[in-house]
């Protein structure tokens, strides 16, 4: 029964990564229900293409499908994607802005971090989610996001720099708002 063996392998290989799949989808589409639709669709596509899985890291493989499904979904439902390419060119150097301070980052609360992360462009957000929340290696990120491995670190550098600066700005505004007039 070739069908069954295939399905069993699929179970064991890809089902353990449903949380990782959902986490990425949830951060990309930023909506609970839409994320569920995306993950379900991604798994059905994965099932169809599982024959093309040639070993390697199954989590990176399923995340690549989740990511494609999510971006297709976003384009269909929310119009053109955020202008990531343009943005990357604008900030080719790692950073020319103000320096970062650990204290400001530590003071940021959960809601601030979430908001700052959601405001990042898709490319930046996904690389932080994959690395810092999901714990993928650079190689796995390169596979999942379909970029050369050399791009992973530079993109991560820009993404983290933006996130940290955004947190610092939020902390600054918060402080001014709380100061007595």
């Amino acid at each position, binding site marked *: 029964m070739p069908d069954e063996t295939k399905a069993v392998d699929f179970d064991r290989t890809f089902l353990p990564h449903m949380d990782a799949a959902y986490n990425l989808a949830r951060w990309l589409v930023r909506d609970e229900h839409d994320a569920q639709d995306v993950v379900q669709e991604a798994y059905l596509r994965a099932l169809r293409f599982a024959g093309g899985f040639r070993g390697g890291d199954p989590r990176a493989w399923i995340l690549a499908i989740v990511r494609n499904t999510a971006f297709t979904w976003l384009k269909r439902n929310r119009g053109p994607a955020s202008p990531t390419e343009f943005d990357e060119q604008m900030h080719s150097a790692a950073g020319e802005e103000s320096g970062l301070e650990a204290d400001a980052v530590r003071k940021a609360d959960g809601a601030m971090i979430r908001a700052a992360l959601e405001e990042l462009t898709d490319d930046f957000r996904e690389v932080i989610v994959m690395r810092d*929340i999901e714990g993928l290696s650079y190689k796995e990120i390169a596979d999942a996001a379909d970029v050369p491995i050399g791009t992973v670190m530079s993109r*991560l550098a820009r993404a983290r720099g933006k996130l*940290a600066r955004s947190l610092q700005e939020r902390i600054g505004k918060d402080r001014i708002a709380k100061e007595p007039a």
Partner: protein
Amino acid sequence: MTCDDARVLMHGHLDGELDLVDDLEVQRHIEECPRCVSEYAALRAMRTRLKDDAFRFEAPAALKEKIRRAIPASTTARANGYQSRRGAWVPRAVRFAVPMAIGAMLALIIAPRTIAPALNQQLASEVVASHVRSLMATHLMDVASTDQHTVKPWFNGKLDFSPPVNDFAKDGFPLVGGRLDYIEGRPVAALVYQHGKHVINVFMWPTAGTATGAERIETEHGYNVEQLTVAGMNCWMVSDLNQLELDNFANLIRTKG
């Protein structure tokens, strides 16, 4: 290293993704540059915050169930079949392991004089290849630390043996990290030491032989390779250090390892 370079590379450093040379260079830069040190501290703090489970969304149970049900054919077999199929892997592994173990034992019994040099040569090539690979940008240290009490426990659960880990910084050979590697088709401990600008890889795995200090020095592709058996460990050292210095290092391993 310029600040612009460091501000990208510090991310690889933070993530343990750099090769040894870049890793040490960026670390040196961070230590010396006040702007980069505060930037690095902020990035570390941010990474710590993001590790919080609060930022990781878990798939709802209903979704998981829906996906499970959507996968055909295996639905009914899964509940009890999962375990037994898992179990089926073990004999398969054993089927590989047994002939290999017998082969290894035979090699040890027959080997002493006749086959030993050939085996040695092949191992030496393998060890040098691992050494060269480790110096390229692709691989890295899995655990970068000069603290033997960090490096040694890191191997727990990754290997079925515990390699002796010592820092020889006092003697001019500081420990800089460790990683997992493969030699002779088995996972082995690789410890990374430094002497000046030279990197020394020490590969260790348990051996059935009990002889200590049966060392041999050879040159392979311009690298010096030294092998000795210490505390039940087969121990191979590779470096571009000259033979005398490598031998000094081997002596440290032999006496303190």
